[in-house]
């Protein structure tokens, strides 16, 4: 048996099962879904020939009533809610990650675990938790009503507010972890030097801490923003139809209204926006770090 053949066999044995799995059960289905976007919708919503761009026209808002911005709103709302949630997550994760990194070494793993464990529970269950808290008549809802934030009998959910809270809650750990890793590697001498140079903590942060934690931040944004943009469960459970995102629009074409080609076209848009977002982040990361390669 030749060496080459043995190596090929070894390669096949190790790589083939996993690669085939992903190829057959992810790449192939995705290609099939993309293809479906270019078919027509049958009389009851299933894909059918002939090939057509109808779904994309409809998605862009061209319908029986002329152009309407409904789907565009959904897309913009998706991006906006993603950005807002990501920004809030960053605001919470920075102090948390810093605090953990300044604790004695034996405490840190436990603290990180404390951050991560809630995200292991099922996302439906996490939403159920917030439904319990935000329902009408609970202390939190009563407090909000007392402060005049909501009408007395309404409760805090379903609402866009509840959706944002749900998004932040779901994705906070994925920002804390990479930021913590960055803080752990922080060059304290640089920070000390900056402290001597600048009086204000803001300036210290901007010139010494931020650049050093940037790779962690970028990784965190990817881990938070991508799944937040594709959110389905939180908007469906906590939004009550008021904070619909593109994931809901897509899912409904398969789970309720039935228009598979339209849903497939929506899924394509989701993938496209995700890829564009990744590219923007990469460029942004490069610019902020002065052309130093940021690993994403």
């Amino acid at each position, binding site marked *: 048996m030749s060496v080459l053949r043995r190596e090929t066999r*070894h*390669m096949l*044995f*190790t*790589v083939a*099962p*996993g*690669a085939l*799995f*992903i*190829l057959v*059960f*992810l790449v*192939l*289905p995705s290609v*099939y*879904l993309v293809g479906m976007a270019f078919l027509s919708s049958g009389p009851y919503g299933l894909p059918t020939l002939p090939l057509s761009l109808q779904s994309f026209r409809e998605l862009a808002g061209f319908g029986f009533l002329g152009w309407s911005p409904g789907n565009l709103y959904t897309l913009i709302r998706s991006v906006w809610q993603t950005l807002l949630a990501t920004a809030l997550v960053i605001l*919470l994760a920075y102090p948390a990650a810093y*605090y953990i990194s300044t604790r004695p070494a034996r405490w840190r*793993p436990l603290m990180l*675990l*404390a*951050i*991560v*464990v*809630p995200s*292991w*529970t*099922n*996302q*439906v*269950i*996490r939403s*159920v*938790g*917030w439904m*319990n*808290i935000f*329902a009408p008549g609970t202390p939190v809802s009563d407090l909000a009503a007392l402060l005049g934030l909501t009408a007395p009998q309404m409760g805090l959910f379903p609402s866009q507010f509840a959706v944002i809270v749900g998004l932040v*809650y779901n994705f906070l*750990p994925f920002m804390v*972890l990479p930021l913590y890793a960055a803080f752990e590697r922080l060059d304290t001498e640089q920070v000390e030097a900056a402290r001597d140079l600048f009086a204000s*903590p803001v300036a210290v942060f901007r010139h010494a801490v931020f650049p050093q934690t940037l790779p*962690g931040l970028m*990784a965190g944004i*990817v*881990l938070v923003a*991508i*799944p937040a*943009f*594709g959110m*389905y469960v939180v908007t469906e459970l906590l939004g009550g139809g008021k904070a619909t995102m593109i*994931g809901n629009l*897509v899912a409904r074409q*398969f789970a309720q209204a039935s228009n598979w080609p339209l*849903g*497939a076209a929506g*899924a394509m848009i*989701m*993938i496209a926006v995700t890829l564009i977002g990744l590219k923007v982040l990469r460029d942004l990361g490069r610019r902020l770090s002065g052309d130093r390669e940021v690993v994403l």
Partner: protein
Amino acid sequence: MSAGRLENGLRAFWIVLLVFLYAPLAVVVFFSFNSINSSARFAGFSLQWYEQLFRNEAIVAALTNTVVLAMVSTIIAVIIGGLLGYGFYRYRLGRLSWLVWLIYLPVIMPDIVFGIAEMTFFVAINERLGILSPGLGTMVIAHVTFQVPFVALLVNARLLSLDPQLFEACHDLYAGPWQRARFFLLPVLRPAILSSFLLALTLSIDDFVISFFTAGPQSTTLPIYIWSAIKKGVTPEVNAIATLMIGSVFLVAFFSLLVQHGPSGGRPSKGGRRA
């Protein structure tokens, strides 16, 4: 600003953050023991919802499905993903450098797209060949597909952290590939395999969307059951089921502490693909 004040501020912030993270879970657990059907007012301690739960055939079946799905898919994913991680390490610089794209694809794909793509694909196959009709089988396939990359990445990361000379020494020591695997690779990879097992398990437990779209009538899992039940409002019964899931997650967390003396989810890749 003095260091002491910053310190105190941060400690207070940390406590508030923990409350934020655990309040929703605590409320679920708390109201599951409520003696009345309300999640606004606690009238008294009661185990009645748990009794009802275990008398309800549909819930018991959902519980079984959840456990079977998580265990079966995780075991398959660890085997396939472990091999893939090793193969990727061995051949990453050669003919298989493109593998990195394949491995990252499931990680960046929004899971709603993932779930729907699989569903339509399974339907198409089922119509033509009569196989892959929606049920536990299709759910296992879907779960393995999103678990494999994470396992592969963890195993690969562990191998990359080793001194390459170790591999050469190993080649000199052991003759065949099986011996090398048995006496060198498996022991070296043990921590990575254990942590990827726990990671894959939590990925499976956490998933709802992909399960939802690939499930069949007989393969309802607990999260899917809850999903349809909460349309009627959050009841103590729902909270009781949720408490079971929360309890199982804390069990996994406990094991991960035992196994590694540290968080198994300590890698940023964890959860990257969940939405």
